[in-house]
């Protein structure tokens, strides 16, 4: 005879404001097999848990139903409390009265009735619960970090310095990411490369870090503690172990006019190239799309000039499998190409550029060696206009969210311009100035007061060319609220920060969730900002949402610390909610007939075969067997099994049936 305890939580007022919790407790108390029932304001609090523990001991409960929030929130909490009171933790289950009832319905009789129904069905299920024991799995203490920008670099270094192995995978030929493209950084104006490149070198030299550049994640299998990652190392067309990075090949390559990605199209590179002089690794790759030999079979000049014979034409992509225990996604962001704003003339007028392009113009390593010269004719612009929110905060045409970094970098751009072009005039059209950050507001004030940048509160309606000038038409919404027209020599659009083009595909490969803008979703917006909904996979940097360098670095260290916490265990406990093939006494042994439909249906290759033998070793029967290390408990095999021989522990067919019948038996 079951002795079930039912504990109804008010969740403050989250549940009790719409559901009559006292009546739910009263109704539950009358159910067959229920030995105790009560309600309490905060079941998850210490006194709440104490009620559960004491009741288990006093009444000798055989099962517990906690009717509260989602099991995602507190199942672990209550199972732990139950096990402390001596009850098998898997005999405790949660009925979701908050997300499934009180939050989605108005206060009414029907809402309370639904709550009673939900509790009743779960009581029937718990009656059939059997004690289960957690599965122990070993932890592979190697982390995979995807993306070699500042987020990936920071996370890799932190994990590696804690003594664990790291594999850092970067899709471009060099690590460094967007930060390596930046000129100087707000709010201190320290040179981006000066603070970044030492870190890049540290990554390359760290004994615990294996660096794979020009490589991408192909596949990720397994689960927390034991992932198997397949990495595609794209063919660089060189022998990396031989190449010493002398760079002779890049100086002799005849294809010299390829727009440089690193210089955002403002400079050129060759077909065999190192993206920038401070690249790590400082070894070239061949761009097959532009290389003359790959295009029409002639040239091979690089091969001729290479003093050590390191060029490898015909080299193929290589797939490498690695075992890792945790993954940090640090794939960063992209800058929106303002094609949706034809009225701003980006792409039509050479001197209308994006903020990232301005970074290259202002950078000492850029195409103009840091002089602010406009792309069309190389002249120094005497009047420059910055347009903030070019695409951001624009639900009609761009994206509704704030890109967060533009207010600050635009202030920095105007400041750098004023420092470099004496007597120049700069204007910033803005909606609001969002300078929330340490020393950020002071930085913007410096731009306005010390550097005399003209801030105009209003938006730009259009930009067009007239007599060699860019006419910027906008409005000043302050003072007289008048239309403004500025004859500028150059315009910089602070175009929105958006997710990387491949983000959605990558998220699907790793089974992590992402939002409608294709930024990866954190597990909880406040309390789990670096975790994803998939255990063992963490987030760092702007792949989660636009963010600046300090915030990115903090999050990366946060993700790294989550990884090292995970790696501090030698083994992990996994919920035993996995499939099992039934076994019964001889002569049946199992209802399984060995058709192995289940094996063909299993997405995790977790089903193998088991041979049942007699004492002499003769095979009597061939049945399916589930590998508990691989099974994820998805239940596909259960649906496929024709003889109903497979069940998910804790979610058996019998239990599901009992729940449905309980629902149908609504008095």
């Amino acid at each position: 005879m079951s002795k079930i305890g039912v504990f109804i939580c008010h969740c403050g007022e989250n549940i009790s404001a719409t559901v009559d919790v006292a009546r739910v407790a009263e109704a539950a108390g009358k159910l067959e097999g229920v030995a105790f029932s009560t309600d309490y304001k905060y079941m998850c609090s210490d006194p709440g848990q104490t009620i559960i523990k004491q009741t288990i001991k006093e009444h000798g409960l055989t099962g517990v139903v906690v009717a509260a929030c989602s099991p995602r929130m507190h199942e672990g909490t209550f199972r732990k409390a139950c096990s402390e009171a001596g009850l098998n933790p898997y005999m405790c289950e949660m009925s979701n009265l908050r997300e499934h009832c009180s939050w989605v319905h108005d206060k009414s009789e029907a809402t309370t009735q639904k709550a009673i129904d939900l509790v009743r069905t779960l009581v029937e299920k718990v009656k059939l619960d059997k004690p289960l024991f957690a599965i122990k799995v070993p932890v592979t203490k190697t982390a995979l970090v995807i993306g070699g920008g500042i987020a990936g670099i920071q996370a890799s270094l932190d994990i590696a310095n804690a003594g664990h192995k790291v594999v850092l995978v970067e899709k471009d030929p060099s690590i460094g990411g967007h930060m390596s493209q930046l000129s100087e950084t707000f709010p201190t104006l320290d040179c981006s490369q000066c603070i970044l490149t030492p870190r890049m070198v540290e990554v390359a030299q760290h004994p615990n870090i294996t660096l794979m550049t020009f490589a991408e994640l192909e596949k990720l299998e397994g689960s927390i503690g034991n992932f198997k990652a397949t990495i595609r190392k794209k063919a660089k067309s060189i022998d990396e172990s031989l190449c010493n990075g002398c760079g002779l090949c890049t100086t002799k390559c005849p294809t010299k006019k390829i727009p440089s990605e690193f210089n955002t199209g403002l400079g050129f590179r060759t077909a065999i190239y190192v993206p920038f002089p401070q690249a790590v690794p400082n070894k070239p790759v061949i761009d097959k799309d532009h290389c003359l030999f790959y295009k029409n079979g002639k040239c091979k000049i690089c091969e001729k000039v290479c003093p050590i014979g390191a060029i490898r034409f015909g080299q193929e992509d290589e797939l490498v499998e690695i075992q890792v225990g945790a993954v940090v996604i640090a794939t960063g962001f992209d800058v929106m190409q303002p094609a949706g704003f034809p009225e701003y003339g980006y792409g039509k007028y050479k001197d209308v550029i994006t903020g990232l392009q301005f970074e290259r113009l202002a950078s000492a390593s850029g195409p103009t060696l840091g002089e602010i010269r406009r792309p069309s004719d190389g002249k120094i612009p005497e009047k420059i206009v910055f347009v903030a929110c070019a695409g951001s905060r624009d639900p009609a045409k761009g994206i509704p969210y704030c890109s967060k970094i533009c207010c600050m970098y635009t202030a920095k751009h105007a400041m750098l311009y004023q420092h470099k072009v004496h007597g120049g005039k700069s204007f910033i059209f803005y909606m609001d100035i969002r300078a929330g950050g340490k020393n950020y507001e002071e930085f913007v004030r410096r731009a306005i007061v010390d550097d005399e940048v003209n801030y105009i509160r209003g938006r730009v309606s259009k930009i067009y060319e007239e007599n060699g000038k860019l006419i910027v038409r906008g409005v000043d919404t302050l003072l007289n609220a008048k239309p403004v027209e500025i004859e500028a020599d150059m315009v910089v659009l602070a175009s929105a920060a958006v997710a990387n083009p491949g983000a959605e595909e990558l998220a699907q490969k790793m089974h992590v969730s992402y939002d409608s803008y294709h930024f990866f979703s954190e597990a909880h917006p406040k309390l789990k900002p670096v975790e994803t909904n998939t255990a063992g996979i963490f987030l760092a940097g702007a792949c989660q949402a636009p963010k600046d360098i300090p915030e990115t670095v903090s999050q990366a260290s946060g993700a790294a610390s989550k990884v090292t916490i995970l790696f501090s265990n030698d083994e992990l406990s996994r919920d035993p909610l996995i499939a099992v093939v039934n076994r019964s006494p001889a002569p049946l042994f199992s209802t399984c007939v060995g058709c192995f439909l289940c094996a063909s249906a299993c997405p995790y290759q977790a089903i193998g075969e088991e041979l049942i033998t007699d004492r002499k070793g003769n095979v009597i029967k061939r049945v399916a067997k589930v590998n508990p290390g691989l099974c994820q408990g998805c239940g596909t095999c259960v649906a496929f099994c024709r003889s109903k021989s497979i069940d998910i522990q804790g979610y058996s067919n019998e239990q599901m049936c009992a729940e449905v019948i309980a629902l149908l038996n609504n008095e």
Partner: protein
Amino acid sequence: MKLGFYPGCSLTGSSREYNESLLAIAKEAGIELCEINDWNCCGATAAHNLNKELSLSLPARNLAIAELEEMDELVVPCAACYNRLVMTQHELDEDSTIKAQIEIKLQMPLKNGIKILNVLQFLEKHIVPRLDQLVKKPLAFDVACYYGCLLVRPQKVMKSERFEDPMAMDAIMQKLGAKPIDWPFKTECCGAGFSVSKTEIVGELSGKIVRDAVNRGAKAIVVACPMCHSNLDMRRPAIDSYLNMKIDIPVLYITQAIALAMGLTPQQAGTQRHFVPVNLPVNR
């Protein structure tokens, strides 16, 4: 397929030539336009500023009649009428309660499924595919395509990404042999309703548009809205006085441009009705 036609008040008055040229090119292309029986005012600017229910029921009545007459598509050449009709359809789609109220008011059912076409959408769908055969006298000169405000808005209904820099009219003019200039003033305000109350504002706003079109070498401005046309054409004296010079660039409805390119006479295109004489460069 039955093609309905809602002229609206302007096309029976100040912009008769728009109506005449539209019907003329439809006839050339062998397309029958069936005028909605007993159509009424779209509500114009007044209704939606004063009374929401009235502003929806006026256009809704026209839509309901069009449905009863089993029209599949409805051509609405006036940009303002088009805006009111399409907004009504959108709002009634969004709110079934209001739709039910309006149906009671009209005492007519409203499925709200008719496809409403503005003049550019009509031309693109029904005239442009036939243009290759019909263009007899290509317009070999530079034109400025002026869209104004209402043709491409509201964005939430039109779903256009290029509402600040539309290209539909430019594409049609190219088909006629003309060269549309790259023009930043396409959607600038012409002064709209100030035409009546504060003509000098129209003089300034339309003046800037006309001046820039001339400066960039256009020989004609092409429009698709009665209000734009009257401000750029009829208000030319106010424009001239703002600019302190006389500007004689003609303003054509796009339907007139098509009619001329089809080889129809100026009378068939109705160009004699303009205030600014339509003197176009001789073809070829």
